[in-house]
């Protein structure tokens, strides 16, 4: 119907509640989590097959019965790989993490729907399909944030998230309608051709403002970021890893795609706006966590800082800068995913998110502590780990594009960010003083296995980044060439 990857994800999303109903009879609800993880792995296999086809024959086009159009190129494959990888780890991790909750089959169904929405967003070839999948991702993420409905915090965060994000979606739709009025089509390639014939007009600027505001709400660019810390800290930890690692990056992807294909006629104007916003985003994202005492809230604020680094890569507008941005999307998904999942293990055992109450927890949970420290050091940008590689690429790109002030801002901000990451490391490694901490045990083995695999990937992509650099470079050249 759509491409095989999205079909598999949608079929598994629809059948998971059915399987859940069956396994609830034999009192083994966790089996539907296994079922959902298998579905994600099958879709990863289909992405690999598509990668073979796309790298030999160029972009693949699927036109389905619903006259929605999918156009799959290397950039789409790159992003979809990130989404499904983090999706598999979140889904396997939730097997134990969500065991105390009710409605597990619906949780997995919503998780699969969110991932298929994201994959559809990056595979779509026109604005209409893009918007439908975008809303699918948004609606399932509101529901997932509010999943633990018996507490007040997720409900309040989800309401704030819903109002801000759907106002953003409506603004995006309004911008799309103006663009449709100018060109009479919504196909990305068609818009590119039509706009290069029409030239820039006032209406193009108006629609660009509306579209960038709409995408900016979802990707948490600074004046529009206030929903992010609430929603990301109130959601269950595996969903926080998804939201912070990949959902926000879908917004960054959309800015790249729309900016460099549709709005390429007014590139110099929107790029200078993005450059200023990126510095603001970095500053807010790295100064506010210094004051936080809540671990998940601190991590959520620091993802705003990382969004700033990605915007700095986009603001250069060169192939090297986009390579850096795409690599940072991949690396940030790994690093922030691992950090949130580690915070989730501590939350699972201690049932607190306050930093004061977890002093010395690392001495009782050595594996969690080691993986957490690896991910935090990678987020700081320490050399042998993967965060360093992508940040250096972005800084080099800013120097190459004669925007060295942006590179200096990135460097200063990673120094500031070290202050709060190291404060977290110090807290969890202190000597144990509280009685509650002394009785804490190490997390369940399946969660630790996920953490170990993810942190091994952080080290591997830090030491041997060549394959990733090549993939990101090819994806960036697709974006700039088409």
């Amino acid at each position: 119907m759509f491409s095989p990857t999205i079909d598999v994800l949608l079929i598994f999303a629809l059948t998971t509640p059915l399987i859940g109903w069956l396994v609830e009879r034999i009192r083994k609800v966790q089996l539907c989590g296994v079922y959902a993880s298998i579905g994600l792995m099958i879709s990863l296999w289909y992405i690999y097959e598509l990668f073979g086809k796309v790298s030999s024959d160029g972009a693949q086009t699927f036109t389905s019965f619903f006259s929605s159009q999918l156009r799959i190129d290397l950039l789409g494959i790159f992003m979809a790989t990130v989404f499904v990888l983090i999706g598999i780890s979140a889904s396997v991790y939730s097997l134990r993490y969500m065991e105390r909750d009710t409605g597990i089959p619906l949780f997995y169904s919503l998780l699969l729907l969110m991932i298929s929405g994201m994959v559809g967003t990056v595979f779509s070839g026109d604005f209409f399909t893009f918007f439908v999948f975008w809303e699918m991702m948004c609606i399932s993420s509101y529901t997932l944030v509010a999943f633990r409905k018996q507490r007040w915090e997720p409900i309040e965060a989800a309401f704030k998230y819903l109002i801000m994000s759907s106002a953003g979606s409506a603004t995006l739709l309004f911008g799309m309608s103006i663009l449709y009025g100018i060109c009479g089509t919504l196909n990305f390639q068609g818009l590119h051709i039509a706009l290069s014939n029409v030239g820039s007009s006032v209406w193009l600027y108006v629609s660009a403002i509306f579209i960038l505001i709409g995408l900016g709400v979802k990707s948490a660019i600074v004046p529009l970021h206030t929903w992010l810390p609430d929603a990301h800290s109130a959601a269950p930890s595996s969903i926080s890893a998804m939201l912070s690692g990949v959902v926000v990056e879908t917004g960054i992807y959309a800015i790249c795609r729309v900016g460099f294909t549709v709005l390429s006629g007014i590139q110099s104007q929107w790029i200078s706006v993005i450059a200023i916003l990126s510095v603001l985003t970095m500053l807010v994202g790295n100064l506010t966590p210094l004051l936080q005492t809540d671990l998940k809230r601190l991590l959520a604020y620091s993802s705003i800082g990382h969004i700033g680094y990605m915007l700095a890569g986009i603001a250069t507008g060169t192939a090297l800068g986009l390579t850096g941005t795409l690599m940072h999307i991949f690396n940030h998904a790994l690093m922030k995913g691992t950090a949130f999942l580690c915070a989730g293990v501590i939350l699972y055992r201690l049932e607190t998110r306050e930093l004061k109450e977890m002093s010395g927890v690392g001495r009782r949970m050595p594996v969690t502590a080691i993986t957490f420290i690896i991910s935090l050091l990678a987020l700081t940008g320490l050399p042998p780990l993967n965060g360093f590689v992508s940040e250096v690429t972005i800084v080099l790109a800013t120097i190459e594009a004669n925007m060295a002030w942006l590179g200096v801002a990135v460097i200063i901000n990673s120094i500031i960010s070290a202050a709060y990451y190291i404060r977290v490391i110090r807290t969890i490694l202190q000597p144990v003083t509280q009685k509650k901490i002394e009785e804490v045990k190490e997390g369940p083995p399946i969660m630790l296995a996920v953490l170990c695999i993810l942190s091994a990937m952080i080290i591997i992509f830090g030491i041997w980044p060549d394959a990733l650099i090549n993939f990101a470079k090819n994806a960036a050249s697709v974006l700039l060439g088409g």
Partner: protein
Amino acid sequence: MIAPPHYLVFSFTLYMIGIYCLVTKRNMIRLLLGIEILINAANFNFISLASSIPGLIDPLALSIVTVSIGLAASVSAVAVIIIVYAYRHYGTLDVRMLKRLKG
């Protein structure tokens, strides 16, 4: 026939009414209505621009509007569920009471 600029003025006004509603209203249901007004402004813009060429109505815009109405309905369904739970937790529909999250 009314000229296209009039339609554009109307849809921009509708958009501004939606933003005004989101900024000033304190009731959760009214905020949801503000979102609906915003989406309808965009839908109206699509419909009015579809007939900008005389004698031809583009089916693409009409299909977009149909799908968009469905999406707006599902957003408001989720919103109403969240509002019901918020009412059970807080005992009020006033958003000013929903500010326990800080920092």
